[in-house]
């Protein structure tokens, strides 16, 4: 067994490409009028076309092409002026026609890129990942095996749902980058509203191609395809495992087999798929039942102009318009709903910086702990803004505000109501503060002496005591000031 010291690993670099299949949010399937609605009875959403019955013929859903073009534009791709479909021939029970209508040499779009941003040491790093192509194809049906002893069951509801296959260049160099790629891609797809992007539900699937080579080499190593990952984290873990495995093989002189391996989440490892004695020969040829599609330049420009503000542009705007840091802007835009929440909040006339901090900490904490999402979070942006406003105008301290916010979440009351009810208004009246300060000074002679003898941090303790004395309602900055004045005799 090869040594897997970190020393060995840094001699190698991983080369990773990702293939993402996205189900497009159309009302009907790609080549027929069956509904794409999830959760219907098995084989309910079917017709002669998606069942592949003899005599049936496909007709392209206009909206599927439109969505595909939009994604291509958002990924900075060239949209092909002539688009055509091809048959990819293979046999499998979930593939009714024994061919998948896909695209081979004239995909909807190609030669684009996606800029991934990720946080490293508190800074935002950027890297361009090439997009080889994004093409349309039809989804296959679903096979059920679990718990069935004497066979497998087939449900064709999913057959014919439009898929966009997005293939990246092998530009990713770490599992973390792969994770970021998926996050960034998902954000873009969310902003475009083209898909639910839900890996658990299967509306977004990812296969990874992983190889390793010694740093400095220009040739690619043998690549292995990894399938069966059900979340972005699983993708990251699977790639991490696979890199280690391949390095281990290399180190012990074993050849890496070009194959497909399945990720096993519970075991935390990839394993080789049995069967597959031969590589697939898909015998691609132009689909005779579909005519070519031409997309006029003017139409492409129209689509480009109608693209919504995408995450990167939004982040730039957050920085310039709201004065946010690169880091904060990046975090807020990475989920469209979060960015929307933030902007709605700021529209209520509160400080963007305060709103940004508050939402990233308090709001998200409550969202996570209550198991909801920002979309269905109980507290509206206006309610959140209400809390922030009270901090801004000094009515309460940040600490008190946290309590108020939780109570708002539990009850239906507004921030103002709660503050009034529980008498949480911040004390800024210097006269009463001086009284509390005096009390604390008298009760803590040793600490006072420490401070006077140069231990500056002792002041913090005294401030804390004043906060305790005032049940957290004192304005800490004022308390600090008053204490210093009294103790330094100014």
């Amino acid at each position, binding site marked *: 067994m090869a040594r897997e010291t970190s020393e060995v690993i840094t001699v190698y670099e991983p080369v990773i490409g990702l293939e993402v299949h996205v189900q497009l949010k*159309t*009302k*009907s399937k790609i080549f027929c*009028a*069956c*509904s*794409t*609605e999830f959760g219907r*009875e*098995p*084989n*309910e*959403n*079917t*017709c*002669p076309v998606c*069942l592949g*019955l003899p005599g049936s013929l496909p*007709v*392209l*859903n*206009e*909206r*599927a*092409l439109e969505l595909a073009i939009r994604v291509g534009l958002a990924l900075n791709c060239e949209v092909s002026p002539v688009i055509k479909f091809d048959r990819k021939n293979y*046999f499998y*029970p979930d593939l009714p026609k024994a061919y998948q209508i896909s695209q081979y040499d004239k995909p909807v779009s190609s030669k684009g890129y996606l800029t991934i941003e990720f946080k490293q040491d508190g800074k935002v790093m950027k890297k361009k990942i090439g997009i080889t192509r994004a093409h349309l194809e039809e989804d296959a049906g679903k*096979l*059920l*095996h679990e718990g*069935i002893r*004497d*066979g*497998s*069951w*087939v*449900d*064709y509801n999913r057959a014919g749902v439009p898929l966009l296959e997005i293939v990246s260049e092998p530009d990713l160099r770490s599992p973390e980058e792969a994770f970021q790629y998926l996050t960034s891609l998902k954000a873009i797809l969310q902003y475009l509203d083209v898909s639910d992007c839900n890996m658990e539900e299967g509306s977004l699937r990812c296969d990874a191609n992983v190889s390793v080579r010694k740093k400095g080499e220009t040739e690619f190593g043998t690549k292995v395809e990894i399938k069966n990952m059900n979340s972005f984290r699983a993708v990251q873990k699977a790639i991490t495992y696979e890199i280690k495995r391949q390095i281990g093989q290399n180190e012990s002189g074993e050849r890496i087999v070009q194959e497909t391996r*399945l990720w096993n989440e519970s075991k935390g490892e990839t*394993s*080789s*798929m*049995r*069967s597959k004695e*031969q590589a697939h*020969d898909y*015998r691609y040829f*132009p689909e*005779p039942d*579909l*005519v*070519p*599609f*031409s997309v006029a330049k003017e139409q492409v420009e129209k689509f480009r102009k109608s693209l919504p503000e995408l995450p990167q542009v939004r982040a730039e705007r957050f920085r310039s318009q709201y004065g946010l840091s690169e880091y904060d802007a990046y975090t807020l835009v990475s989920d469209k709903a979060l960015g929307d929440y933030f902007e709605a909040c700021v529209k209520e006339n509160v400080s963007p910086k305060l709103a940004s901090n508050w939402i990233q900490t308090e709001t998200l904490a409550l969202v996570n702990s209550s198991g909801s999402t920002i979309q269905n979070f109980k507290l509206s942006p206006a309610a959140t803004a209400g809390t922030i406003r009270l901090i801004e105008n000094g009515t309460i301290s940040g600490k008190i505000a946290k309590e108020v916010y939780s109570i708002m979440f539990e009850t239906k009351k507004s921030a103002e109501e709660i503050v009034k009810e529980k008498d949480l208004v911040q004390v800024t009246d210097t006269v009463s503060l001086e009284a509390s300060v005096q009390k604390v000074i008298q009760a803590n002679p040793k600490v006072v002496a420490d401070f006077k003898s140069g231990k500056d941090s002792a002041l913090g303790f005294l401030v804390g005591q004043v906060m305790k004395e005032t049940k957290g309602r004192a304005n800490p900055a004022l308390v600090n000031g008053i204490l210093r004045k009294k103790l330094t005799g100014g």
Partner: protein
Amino acid sequence: MSQKINIEQIAELARLNLKPEERVKLTKDLEAILAYVDQLREVDTKKIEPTSHVLPLQNVFRKDFAVPTRISDAVLSHAPKREGKFFKVPKVIEA
């Protein structure tokens, strides 16, 4: 320079479990036909575009709305093997 056929390989791709006698005859037939079509080599097609579609049709679409067809009962009732609302096949084994 006639084309030789690896009949096992093609039969595998086409999912046909050919019996031994069939294999011999089919290899012969296929090689004869390929020898015949080989005359296409003599045609100069360097500057010629392939014709996949004879009609100059483009951009045939349908609008995105769903219409239920409700044929699943009819289709399942004639399925060679079914399990309730599913089609049934021999066990599909994956690793």
